[in-house]
């Protein structure tokens, strides 16, 4: 059997889930033997090839996140989302009780450390969506691994289940929201 192809995306999140992925210690060796990492913040490859498994960290906070999520969904057979942001919205979604305008004004103009600030308007900066959303609000998700960050054991469990041909559902004792 050839290696399972895997791509990862880092959306509106802190990279903690990717850290947790790398935090599997010696299990990483076994996983690396069975998996080929393609596009990922870890490999710095820019485009998604066709892959078996897509891993996604972070909420959908900007149009770029939305586009990336749709792209990876299209290119992968099974989509796993990692972490509270991707599963539920998490920290990025804390802004949702305010309007997008309020959030931008607070961050770029009103913040205590800012003098003469202005809201960035360069076309290179992807605009914020009105709300930061969990990934499953935008594309179909096959497996959820919550946690902030998810425990390396939980990620390992999900990947191992997948490698054995099962769609993983995290057992209760592995569930963590913090």
């Amino acid at each position, binding site marked *: 059997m050839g290696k399972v192809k895997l791509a990862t995306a880092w959306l509106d999140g802190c990279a903690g889930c990717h850290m947790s992925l790398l935090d599997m210690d010696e299990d990483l060796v076994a996983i690396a033997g069975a998996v080929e990492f393609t596009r990922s913040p870890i490999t710095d490859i820019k485009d998604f090839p066709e892959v078996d498994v897509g891993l996604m960290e972070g909420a959908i906070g900007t149009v770029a996140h939305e586009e990336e999520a749709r792209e990876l969904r299209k290119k992968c057979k099974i989509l796993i989302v990692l972490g509270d942001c991707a599963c539920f919205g998490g920290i990025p979604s804390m802004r949702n009780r305010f309007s997008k305008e309020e959030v931008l004004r607070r961050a770029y103009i009103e913040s205590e450390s800012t003098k003469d600030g202005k809201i960035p308007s360069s076309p290179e900066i992807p605009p914020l969506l009105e709300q930061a959303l969990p990934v499953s609000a935008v594309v179909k998700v096959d497996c959820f691994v919550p946690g902030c960050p998810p425990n390396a054991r939980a990620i390992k469990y999900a990947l191992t289940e997948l490698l054995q041909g099962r769609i993983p559902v995290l057992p209760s004792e592995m569930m963590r929201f*913090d």
Partner: protein
Amino acid sequence: MKEITLAINEKQVKGKEGDTVLDVCRANDIYLPTLCHLEGLTDVGACRMCVVEIEKERRPIPACTYPARDGLVVRTHTEKLEKYRRQILELLFTERNHFCFFCAASGECELQGLAYRYQMDHVRYPYTFPALPTDTLSGFLVLDHNRCILCGRCVRICSEVVGNHTLDFARRGWRTVVTADLDQPLGESSCITCGACVQACPTGALFSKVSAYRGRATEGKFVRSLCSLCSVGCDIDVLVKDNNIVRIDGADLTGFKGQLCVKGRFQQVYRENPRIVTPLIARKRGVVRPASWEEALNLVATELKAYLGRYGAGSIAGLVSSRCPNETVEAFAGFMRDNVGTSFVDTLDGSTYRTLLQGVTAFAKNGQGLEIESPLEAILEADCVLVVGADLLESHPVAGCYILRARTRNRARLLVIEPRQNDLGVRADLWLRPAEDGMETVINALTALVAGKGKRTGKPRKGISAAGAARDAGVDEALLEQAAEMLKSAQKAVVVYGEGILNKEDPKLVASLLELANLINPDGLKVTSIKPGANSRGAWESGAVSQKGLAKASPRLVYVLLSDDEVRDGDWLAQAEQAEFLVVQASYASPLTEAADLVLPSPIWAERAGTYVSLDGKVGHSQEVLEPPPGLKDDKEIIQELASRL
């Protein structure tokens, strides 16, 4: 009670008449998830987690509010029900901010626990993100509406157990919020900060500022102990992590027990007062230097022997705080009597005991003492409570709350006779505020009015008129008459009295109050006196009390075992400070330790184990919760080492 049989999950199980379906499930080890249920509180079916299918009912029904009866056929875990439960959880998560990563309750949250159980790894509904405030201005409590699931456990415990009914719901539908009084911030409300709501809260909506983020239950260990701050004697569960107190819970909190007060739950989690950690010698007053145990104990022994030799045993006095457990008090009294030979050993609150005991024996006339008093729980059965000379919500808040609970649950009437401003008076049906010296007049007038006008037996006193008494005591005549009427109509009246009577050092006053108490309760005397120290009753009954006060002893050397007690004013204080040689064994620096010639360190409540007797005679045990600071010795060990040097 009649036994009933019903079928749950195709199995015949037994319950009692009056049980709910949830009660029967719990009694038969059938798990049902719940969020709004807390044992002892009225069930309201708010969270719907315990929904079950009952044959002949058209829809799922909450088990917590459905009365069990013979022949019911119940199913608790069908696929449909489990689907509903997960759906309910998801909806709860969408309603407010239930992101766990920065929540003080994470790891102990019941909502989180159920989400784990139901493997809620995502939520299928849009979140609502309401803009809700967080009330952080109260001294110890935080009310974060964003974490609230509106289960109402705080509302019910505040009204049904604490009896204060500060918390309730405001607004309607999905705008509903928990609120204090008329939508006031907690800190400005009638809240007495007892923290029952914090312990009852299944999520992080109500949490304690002194305990939040300092450690979780899973990271430390709970030690069952006894609160030794006052004489109510509440059982506590102390969560300890790395030799620090993380938090203090009421033991087995239910609707019947486990209540604590602001002092027991929050104020003693940590104290910032400087600890005394080594012996201190002040050879010339004002110049203090740390000393070794050896030097300090030798100095005490030398001085004791010197005074014995020069002036005899009568020149030496020992005083012990009644916050110390029986074992310490007995060791200290034994040392002073047997090893030193002095007859003067007293507790710091000895004068209270002398007044109380003389008053009680004068009233009882049959040699009975404090055993004529009732357990504090008698208050919970009362239909009328008379509080005299006590500020219970301040000094003994849990006892005060028993009265509030009797008011909420039994509609008991409350009459307070207390000159000082006090929170129980504010909540009373009738509050008589006589002048400081008018207590006796009011008590005698009430006795006369109750005995004179009613069917009650008792000798009517000649020469007492309501008008005269009211004038003399400085109270309103009409109020005095109303108070008498209230007492007369009571069937199960309970009298609680405290320092306002006992500090007058007038046993006659105690006896007159007991006569009134006797008169108003036809089923027999129901009266409880509020003792000042956590172990006053234990210390007094173990014989560590003198026949007279320190003022009459004029000793030259005074040894005070204060431990972690506060220095309260009393006739002994000036006398002790004027002694030629003053030894103080104390946990914290205070004006008394500053006046001492020699200070010995003493462990605090959490660092010692021992036996306590509560104000109503219940025996309790405290445990060593923390390791004492290095170099500290137990009070008993210090006393033994002194004894070996004499």
